[in-house]
């Protein structure tokens, strides 16, 4: 009985339940309601854009793993998340070949060149989005109206545009609430914003469903609620102060909260564990930094929306935040110089 070979391993010999894969899988679950809603509002084209984004990310991840001789990591769900997030930041009639370019860049430039999952500095989906915005400024700001009658029967011709050809838009482009505010000074009602009855990028539209997905992750402790709360609070406080100062010039905090990509950014992108700080103080400063930048870019910047750049800059800052705001180590009187 006792002649069996024993295994040995180092302590601890028990672990807590959560695994990285389970966390990633749950992020995907949390994104699904908002993704489905975008298919409901924008129809077939939304489905095609999301599908292409996920597929291009997975294919890129697979190909780059193979080429570099690494273990293929497509099954860890992180590429699926990047694809979904990228797709959700794009307009519904965005040409599919451009979507695929974005997926390739997100994984290749956003993640792989840094050394793969965990080593990337920036949120990969936003890196893809940023390059697309620079490369295709027209396509990425051309919006289709939500809830059009033929959305499940026809596909906008721009979606199927041939690679490197200028897409032809056969639909009237509705402005997003933020560009309407920026360029025409028109304010969309907050209820429509919260429930997604508006034009905009796929995942920008239903703030409510995105928030619900985010809350699910926070309850399961798979996203840090402090980041989201810190961002949203700083947006409310800063835009609220401005609104009180001059309600004509500056929109209400509710409008700021539910328009554009803020909810998606605050619930799913800024909370991306890899790009955010680890320490509590760092997390709060990071969130406040992003929130303030969002308001500043939206109100005084040249672009209608600033969530993407705010988060990318926050990502760049976060390793330093951890160092600067390092918690006091037990038994030391003051912070050690580093």
């Amino acid at each position, binding site marked *: 009985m006792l002649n069996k070979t024993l295994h040995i391993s180092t302590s601890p*010999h*028990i672990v807590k339940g959560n695994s990285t894969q389970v966390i990633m899988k749950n992020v995907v679950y949390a994104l699904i309601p908002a993704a489905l809603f975008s298919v409901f509002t924008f129809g077939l084209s939304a489905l095609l854009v999301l599908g292409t984004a996920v597929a291009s990310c997975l294919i890129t991840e697979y190909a780059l793993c193979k080429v570099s001789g690494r273990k293929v990591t497509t099954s860890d769900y992180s590429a699926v998340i990047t694809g979904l997030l990228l797709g959700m930041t794009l307009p519904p009639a965005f040409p599919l070949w451009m979507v695929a370019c974005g997926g390739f860049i997100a994984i290749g430039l956003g993640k792989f060149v840094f050394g793969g999952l965990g080593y990337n500095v920036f949120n990969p989906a936003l890196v893809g989005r940023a390059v697309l915005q620079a490369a295709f400024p027209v396509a990425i700001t051309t919006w289709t109206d939500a809830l059009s009658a033929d959305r499940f029967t026809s596909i906008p011709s721009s979606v199927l545009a041939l690679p490197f050809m200028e897409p032809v838009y056969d639909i009237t482009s509705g402005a997003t609430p933020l560009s309407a505010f920026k360029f025409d000074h028109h304010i969309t009602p907050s209820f429509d914003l919260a429930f997604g009855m508006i034009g905009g990028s796929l995942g920008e539209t239903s703030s409510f469903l995105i928030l619900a997905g985010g809350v699910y992750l926070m309850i399961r402790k798979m996203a840090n609620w402090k980041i989201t709360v810190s961002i949203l609070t700083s947006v409310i406080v800063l835009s609220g102060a401005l609104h009180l100062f001059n309600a004509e010039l500056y929109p209400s905090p509710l409008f700021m909260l539910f328009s554009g990509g803020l909810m998606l950014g605050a619930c799913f992108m800024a909370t991306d*564990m890899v790009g955010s*700080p680890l320490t509590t103080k760092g997390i709060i400063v990071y969130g406040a930094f992003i929130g303030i930048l969002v308001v500043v870019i939206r109100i005084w910047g040249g672009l209608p929306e600033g969530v993407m750049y705010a988060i990318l800059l926050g990502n760049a800052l976060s390793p330093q935040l951890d160092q600067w705001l390092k*918690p006091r180590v037990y038994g030391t009187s003051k912070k050690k110089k580093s």
Partner: protein
Amino acid sequence: MKMLNIHKDTFKHGVHPPEYKEETNHLPIRQFDFAPVLIIPMAQHIGSPSEIVVREGQEVERGQLLAKSTGYVSVPIHAPAAGIIRKIANVPTISGKMSPGIFLEVFPFSGQEVAEGMPLDLETASADEILKGIQDAGIVGLGGAAFPTHVKLKVPDDKNCEVLLINGIECEPYLTTDHRVMLEQTEDVIHGIKYLMKATGAPKAIIGIEANKMDAAEHLERFIPEDLPIEVKVVPVKYPQGAEKMLITSIMGVEVPSGGLPIDVGAVVVNVATAAEIGRLLPHGWGIQERVVTITGPGVKNKGNYLIPMGTPLRYVLDQVGISDNISEVYMGGPMMGMAVSNLDISIVKGTSGIIVFNDEDVVSRNEEHPCIKCGACVEACPLSLNPSRMGLMAKFKAYDRMAEEQNLLDCFECGSCSFVCPSHIPLVQYFRLSKSIVRKRKSAKQHA
């Protein structure tokens, strides 16, 4: 009845592993039979190994001195049973190193009576005599560290011991030895505390107990005479509260300075089972011969708390309690900090607080390691507010010196909370063990150069 002192305060961070204590915490301590041959290693404690004073073929009484201490940080070893020294040879130990050892063939009629030594009367003995008595009894920290207790009790001339903390926390999952000792050896515990207070000059003692052992807390509270300055404090359940530093913070609200000792904040911490041994042995001048061990885990048939003679081979122990057919790993100590056993021919020694047997399906070490996703779970877990995520990355890049200088690596006491919570199954604490030993080697190399 006095009201129990239930404390809300605790140290920062920490984790809540499942406890698994309910399988053994109600089982009374049972005496274990003598194995036919006891294998007694000389390296049972931290410090220099004991030196054998018997020869092959010699007959010994139970309690007789087998090996003497070899310096200040060393303790003697006594015969756990009456028998004959069959062999003196190198024997394996849990660390994987061999140690000189004694093979003691137990006489079939060896009873429980012990050879009397030099009794040490509590009333007349001086502090130094008590320290000497504790050393002569071969007592080391029974919580698992096996550090010679008399060394720890020696208060430096320029310091004062303001409080004696008795550690009844037992925060490791599965283990219930201290719990049973507090319930069943209550008088020994209190008598031991009296010796300890005299030895350290502490004006008062506090027994720290976690809230999952309320029965032990109430029992002790009932037993403590009104006129003794001994207090029982119940603290919330959290790992690693049994670590000296954490216990001090939970109970006294102060932090032990980095690189310092409990006495720097006026405290001396002693494990409750160690206190019980002192209270039991010193009045008779006996040496330590046996200890309480929790034997448990999914692979064990007759789980329980057993009083096992030192030197009992692990193989014999497992044979006696019965184990399942598909055992995979055996640990000595708790599942958070205990070591995996590579060889069943090692023995129960003074530092063995538990034996845990896992079947194939219970083993987690084969979980695949994934990259760190910077989730921060380890940062939230580390009781010392270190940054295990960053240190893990630095260890991968072999930046050991920077880990020590910038990240306080040497403060890490390897509680394993970071590895426990890591969703990517990164063996963080193992990296830190290796990094620490490399940094220490480099430091001593520098000193010698």
